[in-house]
Each structure stands twice: as structure tokens, then as C-alpha cells.
């Protein structure tokens, strides 16, 4: 195809431009002169400048770039990832020439542009048809598996329903999953471990289901319960506890890279707590997992029976937009695709355990995922608008629907506000027509930080004038209506504090003024340009125009720049005022502090002020319509083009929207041309025919309960991931999960009721289990596990008695504008501590909390000195240990031995050994102050190794 195309152009060139040296029809037969030209002018440059990255040798050394070979004639013709390198006879259309001329996004050679003469040689060579005497072949590109091969791979095969295996030790299993475990063990001539004792089991179960330890009384009740169904009763009670959702919701938040701020500029996601509460609520209500998937991907597009349901569904879609996005990326096309890429990463890893984003720039090197599939999926997400773009882009918040009663209230309120705003607008135009109350104002008489035009930095000639007779300071400046595009005036205040300011511009209006003056405010929020019409009087006092409210940082750049570029008429500038804004969004002082007598004179202005006050009161009082982070469907629905090598500026063919082809079974939802396709994407993922979804969540659940998944690479079910240690069990669980209506609680219940889960973590050191299965891939014992950061903190607070069990809601002041240096002092459960990307709670940081910018299916588990330093020296464990000591000493306990038993049971869930008792007694004896001694004991129990483990 491309050959014929090239040929026809060649013919055309030779026909149309007869004066030129004829381009050869057969590239294989260049003339001697052409060969000479190639050998002298072209080949040396190719060898010197290009072969390092574009040759067969480079390919052998894995240094080939862009899939482009320049050491073979065929290589040039076939081109690389961006397409054919040249169009023989047409240098202007040849990628090679554009690249050499640095006209393309890709510029070569990277070290610097070649001399113009050399580039001219190349152009001449292409023009003569790119005669090339070289032979050589093109190396085959490395690609991942084909679809046919891929469908043989375990994770892309449909989920099966394996028969329950027969086992020898028939009395061991309590349910079917035990039979799969036991069969695998017996195949290796292994036996499962003994059951854990009841106190150990209770502690394990409480941490696993609630994330908190049982109280000693709860352990006692379970140990003493003679009912054969005692354990089952306990499991059901814990599954019904609201703390269950707090524990399991947090697991999902690790996957969803849940956060409440963005790294860049520390902006707060004011509404993302709603998503956290939604997730917790879903686990507590046991919302079917397939439903949970659909709500997060396309909740806004799903039908809803009630406003409450619709609210929940919209809140769920925050899942899509909590990425740690580079809001200030200046290339917004790039940013749009980066946001899509991030969403795709979270969706594909989170639900499907696939590394789809590897295919953004090239076909996946290992898995059966071609770039086409990437852009088929990206096309869907590209139709979901996630950002409003500006110098610093902003995520999208949408209003939430309300129940009819509240809806009516809010609507009434909104109508009132609108009416008042209209009134104010009218009053303003009236007031604006009046003259300023005081013609000449001194800088010192104005509130806020005032920069007069006399102090402003001027570029070009600005004329000082007092002609209008109304101005601030020593007059105002104007550009003489000359030198358009050459003059600017910059107002730079000395701010004494970081905070929000209202910026007001004073200018001198008039009929001969410019009507569209670009005024740019540089603030911590980026830069914003406002077009100011200087032919109309400023609305405030006939003197000021409010440019809006902005956040400025004391040490950051804060200034207002007025340019006369593109203006017609005089550009004037009198002063810029920065008024500090109070927390609730209202300036601390009025625009000016004129004498009472003069203020009362102008009736319209007095009225205006009263109206503005009323508006602020009204807006503050509410009722407010709640908003949530979400996405909007784009106005234009379209398919995406392949971005060759992932470059936004290098667009290839259009790919119809769709899904991962290798994982498409059964009825595939059809993507309608006028909708984004998110709903269909959700349906495809949440389908029983999808080979990945159920397997992935079942495996995650197993991981969260056992510390290791049946597939240990929980986020990667591709060919570079691990294989399942017990594939039949995985499929059995997945099948059953779907049959049970995708119920998470039923799945968890089945697992924790199994005998496998109830095994002891203690194994005889000579046991064949340790020799044959050292990594415990077959689950012939329970893994001892590390407590996560949240569990450590919640346990410390349980022991000290300071835990605040309040649930849900925003957990930081609504007025917070940036997360920098946020101090976490809240004593609520850890799941409610705000997840600020620049300011995580210190305990979270040192104890391997999930990085809130990435999908984390498996947390790190490190043992490092900073953890020790934290527990030894940080005031949190020291203080809580003191509270724990006070609490213990306040209880009616007989003696130190009873107290010690209680302390051990509270902290470690077991009684102290004789040796431990002796150690504690000696310590207590050495210390005069019992409170101090017990505080020390508690702190060191928090610090001890047993505290951070569950057996």
C-alpha cells in the first residue's frame, strides 16, 4: 500500500518537474552520480549522527529508538513508530527532513541541529528520490503475546467452576475452600497446621474484620462461649459492625489512591471525604461488588430511584478524578491525555490487575495488549471531562441533587440570592455613574495594601496625569494611546502575610479609554488575565473594579500587570489595592473608609453596601447545595486517535472505542456514538464474562485476610506477574462469589469461617511445611502479619482510652486552603485522618501507609530505624502511654500483677509470661513514681515487636 503510494508520488514529481534529475522508478537502481552523492553527503552523516540509535546494531544492543532503522534502505522506507521516514521526491512531506529542520515535535539529532548545508543536502537527496544503494533488512519489532496466545494464559481464560477435589483427611475441612487447600497440601504429602487457640483467633479476627483489637472482656466472652456456633456468631457480629466498613473501606481506598489534596500547590480536594464515606458505607451495606464497580466508573450515568441514590452514585465517580495530577502542566492537550492515562492506570490495575498503561507508547511488550486497545479505552475516558483548564487547571465539582423538601428550600434560597445579585448589579451601575465621593484620595486613607501608580514598575513611557481630577495619590498613569504592545505597568505589593486577598484595580475611566485592557493577576493560584473596559466607570465607589479574590503567598510572586497590548484608546492605571479577606470570604474592611458624612451623601452607594452585606449574610446562612468531585460528559463525543509513541503531537489513526480484546467474552456492550462509553466500560468490567474482575477482587480479599494472595502480585495478572499457587481454588472462589451476587461479606465470611483461616501461625521448626513450602504458597499455616499503620494507631488509642469513634464527615477545617504543614491532632479512627499528600500523619509515613498517588494492592512492610525513633521519641506514643497509665491506675485492680496482666492483654492480646512479669516487677520497683513507671511500660509495649504483629 505505502509502496504504491510512494511510487505514484514519484511518478507525479518526475512528470511535473521535468528539469530535475529524474527520480528512479526502481529505488534499487540509482545512477552512479546519485550513489556518489549518497556516499559523500548522506551516508557519513547517517553513520555519525544516527546509527547509534537507529541501526541494526543499536537494535541488537537494545538501544534502538523509535523503532526506526536508518542503516537499511527498507528501514527508511518503512520508517519507525511515527510512520515512513521519507516520501521520495518530496522533502517537504518527509518526516526525516522536518525532523532534521527541527520543525517537528521530535527534533533530531538530539544534540543540536545540523548545519543548514547538511540539511539542504538531505533535502536534495530526498528530492532526487532518495537513491540508496544499501541493502539490509528490517528487524522485526518485539511485541507481546498475540490474542490467541494470550487466551491460553491463565488470567485471560474464562473463569471455570472446578469440581471439589477429594481429600484423605475428610474430617479436617469445614467448607469447600478447605478441600482445595487440603488437596494441594496432600499432593505434596503435607498436613495443615493445628487450629489457633481462641484468644489468638479472636485477636486475628478483630483486626482482620474491624482493624481494632478486642477488649479483654470480648476475648473472655468468646473463649467461654460453649455454643458450637460460637465462632460463627462472632464472625456475624463483627461483619455487622460499622467498624467493618471502616476497615475494609480503607483497603479499597488503597486501590483507589484516595487522597484529600494534590501534591502541587497543596490544593485541598474539599469534597473527596464524601467518596471515603461512600466506600465505607458500601462495605457496611454489602453493596454487590459489580454494582460498586459500575457506580465508581459511571454512577453519574446510571438511573437512580431516589435523589439519595443519585447522590451516592455521583459521589462514587470521584474515584475517577482523585489522581495526583499536574494541574499546572502548560500543554493542556498533554494534560488531558495524562489525566486519561492516570484514570486508565487506576481502572486497569484496580479492577483488572492489568498494566494497560504500558501500551500508551507502543504495544505491550509482554502482555496481549496492543496500543490500539489502549486508545480504544482512552477514547472512552477522554470523553469524560475531568478538568476545567486554565493556567492552573482545576478538577470538576458538580452539584448534588437533594430530596424534594430540601431541594425546594435550596431552590428558594438560590432564587433569593439571584434576585439580590441582580439588584446589586443594578445598584452598582447606578453608583458607578456617580462621581467618586472624594475626588482625590491619599494612599494612607485607603484600607488594605495599596500600590499607587507612582510606585509601579513601568515599561515604556507612561504619562502621569491629574486631568480627570479624581485619583489616588499623585495622579494616574496612561499610555498616551501610543506604543501599543510596548508598554506595561506592574503593581507589586509587599505582602506581610500569606492568605486570600481581594484585588481591586483603580483606573481613570472615560470615553477615549480602551475597552479591553488585559490585566493579569499573578497569584499562588497561577495567572489570570481579565479584560477591563475602561470606558465605563469602575463599579465600586466609581473608583475600583474588583478583579476577584486570590490566594497570595508572602514569599511568592504576587503582582498585577497591565499591558497595552492590542488595546485601542488610552490605557490608564491609578492604583491596585490588596484587601485581606476573612475566612468566610468577606473583606475585613470596606473598599474605602470615607468620612461618615460624605458616605451618606451618595444614597445609591449606601444602598449598595447594605445590599452587599445582605448578600453575604444570605450566602453564609445557606442552605447550601452540596457538591461532589465528579466528571462531566464531553460535549463532543469522539473516538481517540493513536498517539504515536505516546506523543500528543504525533497523531495516528482513529481507534473505535472499545475494551481489552483479549478479555472480551460473551456479549460485548456496544458503545453508542453519542455517549462516552463509560457506562459500557463499567458493564464490561462488572460482567460475569470478564475473566479478570472477579478473580482480581477475590484474590485481593484473600491477600487482605492472609497477607499474601493466591496470586501474590495482586495488581498484576499479566504475564510478568506471578501465577496463582492454587488456580482451582481461585476459580472456585470467583465462581462462588459471582453466584452469591458479588457479595463481599459472603466472600469474607466463607474465608474466615474456613479451617484454613483458623490455623495457627506457629509451626514446629522441623515441620515438613517449612521445608517443602517455605514461602507458604499452599497456606498450610497462617502467616504472621504486620499490623498496618492505622491499626497501630487505633490500638494505641484504644489502650489509652482516647479513641473518638465519631463516624464520617469532613475531618479538617473547611477553610483550609493548602495542606502544607498540616498538623494531625484528631483522635478519631485512622481512616478518618485527612489523607494529605504533602502532609501525611507521621505515623503513617514511617509505618508504610499506602502511597496515596498510586494503586497499592500490597503495602510495603519495612523494619527501619525511623520507626524505632518514632516510637521512642515522638510525643504521640509518649502521651498516649501516659493516658493509658492514668487509665490503668484509675481502675479498681488489686495489685501490680493484675495491672500488668491487664496491660499485656490490652496491648498484646495475651497474658505476660513469668519472665515478662519479673522484668516488669523489677522495673516498677526501680521507679518511685508509679504513673511514670506505668507510662514507660505502656510506651515500651507499644514499641515492642509483638505489638506490631498478629499471629
Amino acid at each position, binding site marked *: 500500500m505505502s509502496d504504491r503510494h510512494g511510487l505514484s508520488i514519484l511518478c507525479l514529481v518526475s512528470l511535473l518537474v521535468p528539469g530535475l534529475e529524474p527520480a528512479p522508478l526502481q529505488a534499487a537502481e540509482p545512477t552512479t552520480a546519485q550513489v556518489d552523492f549518497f556516499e559523500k553527503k548522506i551516508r557519513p552523516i547517517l553513520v555519525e549522527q544516527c546509527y547509534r540509535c537507529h541501526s541494526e546494531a543499536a537494535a541488537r544492543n537494545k538501544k534502538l*529508538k523509535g523503532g526506526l532503522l536508518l542503516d537499511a534502505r527498507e528501514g527508511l522506507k518503512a520508517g519507525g513508530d511515527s510512520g515512513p521516514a521519507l516520501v521520495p521526491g518530496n522533502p517537504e512531506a518527509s518526516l526525516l527532513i522536518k525532523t532534521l529542520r527541527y520543525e517537528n515535535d521530535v527534533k533530531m539529532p*538530539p544534540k543540536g541541529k545540523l548545519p543548514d548545508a547538511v540539511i539542504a543536502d538531505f533535502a536534495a537527496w530526498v528530492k532526487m528520490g532518495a537513491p540508496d544503494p544499501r541493502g539490509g533488512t528490517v528487524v522485526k519489532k518485539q511485541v507481546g503475546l498475540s490474542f490467541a496466545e494470550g487466551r491460553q494464559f491463565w488470567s485471560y481464560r474464562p473463569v471455570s467452576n472446578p469440581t471439589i477435589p477429594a481429600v484423605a483427611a475428610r474430617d479436617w475441612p469445614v467448607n469447600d475452600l478447605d478441600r482445595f487447600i487440603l488437596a494441594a497440601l496432600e499432593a505434596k504429602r503435607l498436613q495443615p497446621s493445628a487450629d489457633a487457640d481462641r484468644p489468638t483467633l479472636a485477636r486475628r479476627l478483630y483486626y482482620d474484620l474491624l482493624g481494632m483489637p478486642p477488649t479483654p472482656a470480648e476475648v473472655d466472652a468468646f473463649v467461654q462461649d460453649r455454643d458450637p456456633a460460637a465462632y460463627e456468631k462472632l464472625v456475624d457480629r463483627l461483619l455487622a459492625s460499622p467498624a467493618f466498613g471502616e476497615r475494609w473501606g480503607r483497603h479499597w481506598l488503597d486501590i483507589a489512591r484516595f487522597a484529600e489534596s494534590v*501534591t*502541587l*500547590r*497543596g490544593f485541598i480536594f474539599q469534597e473527596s471525604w464524601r467518596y471515603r464515606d461512600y466506600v465505607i458505607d458500601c462495605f457496611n451495606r454489602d453493596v454487590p461488588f459489580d454494582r460498586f464497580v459500575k457506580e465508581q466508573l459511571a454512577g453519574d450515568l446510571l438511573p437512580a430511584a431516589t435523589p439519595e441514590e443519585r447522590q451516592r452514585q455521583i459521589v462514587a465517580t470521584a474515584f475517577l478524578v482523585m489522581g*495526583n495530577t*499536574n*494541574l*499546572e*502542566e*502548560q*500543554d*493542556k492537550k498533554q494534560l488531558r491525555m495524562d489525566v486519561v492515562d492516570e484514570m486508565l492506570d487506576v481502572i486497569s490495575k484496580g479492577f483488572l490487575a492489568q498494566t494497560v498503561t504500558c501500551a500508551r507508547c507502543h504495544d505491550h511488550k*509482554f*502482555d496481549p495488549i496492543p496500543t490500539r486497545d489502549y486508545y480504544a479505552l482512552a477514547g472512552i475516558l477522554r470523553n469524560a471531562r475531568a478538568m476545567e483548564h486554565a493556567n492552573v487547571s482545576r478538577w470538576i465539582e458538580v452539584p448534588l441533587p437533594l430530596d424534594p423538601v430540601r431541594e425546594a428550600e435550596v431552590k428558594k434560597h438560590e432564587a433569593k440570592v439571584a434576585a439580590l445579585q441582580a439588584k446589586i448589579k443594578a445598584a452598582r451601575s447606578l453608583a458607578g455613574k456617580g462621581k467618586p465621593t472624594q475626588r482625590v484620595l491619599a494612599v494612607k486613607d485607603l484600607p488594605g495594601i495599596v500600590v499607587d501608580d507612582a510606585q509601579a514598575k513601568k*515599561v515604556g513611557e507612561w504619562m502621569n496625569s491629574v486631568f480627570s481630577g479624581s485619583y489616588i495619590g499623585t495622579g494616574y498613569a496612561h499610555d498616551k494611546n501610543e506604543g501599543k504592545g510596548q508598554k*506595561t505597568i*506592574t503593581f507589586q505589593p509587599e505582602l506581610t502575610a500569606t492568605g486570600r486577598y481581594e484585588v481591586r484595580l483603580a483606573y481613570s475611566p472615560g470615553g477615549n479609554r480602551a475597552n479591553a485592557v488585559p490585566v*493579569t493577576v499573578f497569584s499562588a*493560584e497561577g495567572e489570570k488575565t481579565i479584560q477591563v473596559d475602561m470606558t465605563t466607570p469602575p463599579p465600586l465607589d466609581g473608583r475600583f473594579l474588583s478583579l476577584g479574590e486570590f490566594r497570595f*503567598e*508572602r*514569599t511568592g*510572586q504576587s*503582582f498585577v*500587570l497591565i*499591558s497595552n497590548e492590542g488595546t485601542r484608546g488610552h490605557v490608564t492605571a491609578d492604583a491596585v489595592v490588596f484587601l485581606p479577606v476573612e475566612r468566610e470570604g468577606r473583606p475585613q474592611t470596606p473598599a474605602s473608609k470615607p468620612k461618615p458624612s460624605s458616605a451618606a451623601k451618595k444614597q445609591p452607594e449606601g444602598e449598595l453596601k447594605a445590599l452587599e452585606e445582605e448578600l453575604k449574610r444570605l450566602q453564609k446562612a445557606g442552605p447550601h447545595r452540596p457538591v461532589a468531585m465528579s466528571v462531566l460528559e464531553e460535549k463532543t463525543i469522539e473516538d481517540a486517535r493513536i498517539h504515536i509513541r505516546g506523543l500528543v503531537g504525533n497523531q495516528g489513526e482513529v481507534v473505535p472505542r472499545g475494551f481489552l480484546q483479549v478479555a472480551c467474552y460473551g456479549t460485548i456492550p456496544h458503545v453508542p456514538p453519542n455517549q462516552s462509553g463509560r457506562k459500557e466500560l463499567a458493564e464490561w468490567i462488572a460482567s460475569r464474562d470478564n475473566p479478570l474482575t472477579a478473580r482480581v477482587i477475590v484474590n485481593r480479599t484473600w491477600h487482605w485476610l492472609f497477607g499474601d494472595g493466591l496470586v501474590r502480585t495482586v495488581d498484576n495478572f*499479566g504475564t510478568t506477574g506471578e501465577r496463582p499457587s492454587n488456580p482451582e481454588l481461585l476459580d472456585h472462589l470467583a465462581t462462588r462469589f459471582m453466584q452469591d451476587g458479588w457479595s463481599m461479606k459472603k466472600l469474607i465470611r466463607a474465608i474466615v469461617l474456613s479451617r484454613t483461616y483458623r490455623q495457627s*501461625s506457629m*509451626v*514446629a*521448626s522441623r515441620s515438613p511445611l*517449612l521445608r517443602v513450602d*517455605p*514461602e507458604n504458597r499452599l497456606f498450610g499455616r497462617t502467616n504472621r502479619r504486620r499490623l498496618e499503620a492505622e491499626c497501630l494507631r487505633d490500638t494505641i488509642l484504644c489502650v489509652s482510652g482516647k479513641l473518638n469513634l465519631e463516624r464520617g464527615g469532613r475531618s479538617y477545617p473547611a477553610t483550609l486552603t493548602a495542606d*502544607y504543614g498540616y498538623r494531625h491532632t484528631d483522635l478519631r479512627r485512622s481512616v478518618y485522618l485527612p489523607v494529605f*499528600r*504533602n502532609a501525611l500523619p*507521621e505515623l503513617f509515613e514511617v509505618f508504610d501507609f499506602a*502511597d496515596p498517588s*498510586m494503586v497499592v494492592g500490597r503495602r*510495603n512492610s*519495612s*523494619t*527501619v*530505624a*525511623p520507626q*524505632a*525513633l518514632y516510637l*521512642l*521519641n515522638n510525643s504521640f506514643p*509518649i502521651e498516649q502511654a501516659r493516658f493509658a497509665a492514668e487509665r490503668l491506675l484509675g481502675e479498681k485492680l488489686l495489685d501490680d500483677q493484675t495491672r500488668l496482666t491487664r496491660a499485656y492483654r490490652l496491648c498484646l492480646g495475651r497474658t505476660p509470661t513469668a*519472665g515478662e512479669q519479673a*522484668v516488669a516487677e523489677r*522495673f516498677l520497683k526501680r521507679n518511685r513514681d508509679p504513673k511514670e513507671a506505668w507510662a514507660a511500660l505502656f*510506651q*515500651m509495649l507499644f514499641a*515492642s515487636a*509483638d505489638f506490631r504483629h498478629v499471629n
Partner: protein
Amino acid sequence: MLSPITRREWLLRTSCGFGALALSGLAASAASPPNPLAPRKPHHPARAKRVIFLFMQGGVSHVDSFDYKPRLAKDDGKMLSFEDARVLANSGMRASTHRVMKPLWKFAQHGKCGRWASDLFPEINKHVDDLCFIHSLHTEGVAHGPATLFLHCGSTTFIRPSMGSWVLYGLGTENQNLPGFVSIAPSAGNGGPRNYGNAFLPAVYQGTALGKAGGPVSEATIRNLTGPLSAASQQARIELLREIHAEQLKRSPGDAELEAVASSYELAWRMQNNAPDVLDLARENKETLALYGINEKRTDAFGRQCLMARRLCEAGVRFIQVTYGDSSANPAWDQHSNLPKHGDHALAVDRPIAGLLTDLKRRGLLEDTIVWWGGEFGRTPYAEKNGTGRDHNPGGFTVWLAGGGFKPGYAHGATDDFGALAVTDKVHMHDLHASILALLGLDHEKLTFRYSGRDFRLTDVHGRVVKQLFA
């Protein structure tokens, strides 16, 4: 005998940290977990052992400091066409018109090499014969956030490990009582912790922040190194913990994980006893303090940070970053308006940096220490929006390197006549990363980590070692 977990099993399941080193009696055992921070052999013989990166946050104007462009004075005030990175990113327009602005500082030749430099940094100018300039650096990201992340992590967007973490991962560190990667007074802004974060590398490779940008120098210490308790009370508690651990070990003898936790406290204890000495500048004599400009109002803060960097470097810390910046959205050198403000910043860093160079050299440390000076990008040779400052310029700017095998008295590459874009012997930020790694003995293509099914590197699929930079 019951054993809850074997050493081997534990090894396989956990990424262990500092703590692992001191496992008493385990060190000799073949099954003992390797200390991930132990010094490791480089890929090839190294010329440098460590890095001090002096980060000039916000972007120093190269055309006002080290990149001499006579054309700017000649064409001052002229409206000319340039390819502006921000305009290009925003609109796709390659050409836009801007007012050329001459440098505000005077240029002259310095040193035996006759290097042109302005009088913005008079003290650093005295060291030009030791410096290796790159005038043709270019990078990614037009705004601070993306460009700062690119500078540190080699990516404007994706969550990637910081260069210091990569180096620590590649080489380990020489002093197990101190963190191996330290960032002194890092900025909370523009990527904040991500700029010294380990991302997907194991947590032990995370940078340790000493203090914060704009905070008092007294706070520039390792967190939780000291606490509210008295020394006696703490000593007593540590003793108690040792006994508690001994008893816990009796319940499960030979438990490697338990021992690792216990030994992490021993290391913490050693850090607590050693690190304060390293961080204590009072141990330096008056002459040295004066050399760094310490106790003088303008230079005290940055002087102390530079001196601390030298002390850490001497103590065997692998990668030390010193930031001159702040946590605002427009940090320190970001003079979009009021360019003369560059003078204040230069005053604050010039003496301390020159002092550091002198001090490293006379102690013989410059031999195997790379000193890297530079920002996330440079600035435009024209006035931003025709105002009084310069906008960001990722297309061409200058950094310098000293010591550790970089060629002294050398200048590499060039920008165009105006200093707008790198044109000759261009060096990309990826190339600079690759070259610094090369002198540390690391091959940037071999320094990989497998995550999410593929091998990642600092330089992604880019970067080339610029050998001309090497002595």
C-alpha cells in the same frame, strides 16, 4: 520447638531496613537478610562517591549569570520573535514576539580559563577554574511543578523515585548510623515530598528531610532524633525495651522478624547518639564558619545548610541536597517581575557556595564528591509579558558541576545568540542524570527496578552519558 516464621520466609516476605544490619549473630549466617543499605559495588569503577546538589529553586536566569550573550545588550528593548515554551505549550504557536531585555549584571572574564560570568555571583566566579559548565541544558516542563519533578525524578507527571533514591538503591551508603539520602530544607511546594520520595522503590531508599524550606536552621534535624523525655528516663526505657524484647524472643527463639525489630532499636539508639554530632555546627572553628558566611545576616541560613552538607558528606552520606528556595508556588529565584531581586538571592548563596567549594577542596573531598548547582530551568532572555521580569525557560539554560570527575575549567555546549534555546551540543536533563550516575559508577540503563511488570529507570528510555564533561 515452635517457630512462627523462618528466617528465609521472613526474608522473602519483607523488605527490611537499616535494622537488618545489626542482627546480632545473624550477620555470618548465609540466610541472614542482606542489608539493603550496605555499600554496593558499582557497575563500573566510580570517579565519585557522593553528590551534593545545590538546588536553586525557581530558576536562576542564566543570561544574567553565566551565559554571556552580548546580543542582549545590543538588541535591548527590541521586539523580536522567539519560540517561547509557554506560548508553545499553551497555543502550539512556535513564534511569538517579545521584548529583548539586557542582563542587569555586568559580565567579565574570570579565572585562568577566561570564563565569562556576570558579577551576580562574585565569589563563585573565583572558582570558575574548578567548574564544569553546561550551557546547553534543556529539560521538560514549563511550570515549576512539572519541571521540578522532572529535575528530581525524571518525569513531569508519573510517580517515580527521586534521583537520590536511585543512587542509594544503586550504591547503598557508607555510614549506617545516618540516613544515606538527605534533603536539607526541602520545599513543601512543587512536588514537595515526591522530590525526595522513593515512589515504588523500597522505603529504605526514601530521602530524609532535615527541616523545611524557610524554616529555622535549628529545625534542620532528623525527625524524632530527640524527644520530650529526659536522657535518664529514656535510657531507662530503652533498657526496659531490651528486656521486654529478650522475653518476647524467648517465646519464639530464632525469630528473625522479631530480632529485626529489636535491632532497629539498636540502630535508632546509635543514630540518636551519633547523628547530633554530625549535625552540630558548633564543632567547627571560627575561620570555617566565616568561610561559609555563618553569623552574618544575609548568608547565615544558607551558609549553615552548606556547612551541614559538608559535614554529612564527610560522614559518608551518599546523596545530599541543599535547597535554596521556599514552599510558595513561585519559589525564590522565580522573578516573573522585578528581576533585580535576583541580587538578594545571589547575595544569600554566593559566599556559602564558594565557601563550600573551598572547604571541600582543601579537605580533599572535592576529588570524589560531585557538586551540582542549578535550578529546574532557566529564564527567558526577554521580558515576560513585556514587564520587568523573565519567564521560565526550559529550552536552554546553564548548570555547573564541580569535582567527582567533572572536567574543571570547562564549558560545554551553547545556546543561541540570545540564550533562548540550546543549539550546540545539547544536553538533556536525562543526559545530565545519566552522566552523574556514570561518574558514580552506575550505568543508567542497568540501574533498574522491576515494578508493575516492567523495569523502570531514572532516565526512562532516554538519556546518554556526555563523556566530554568528564576529566
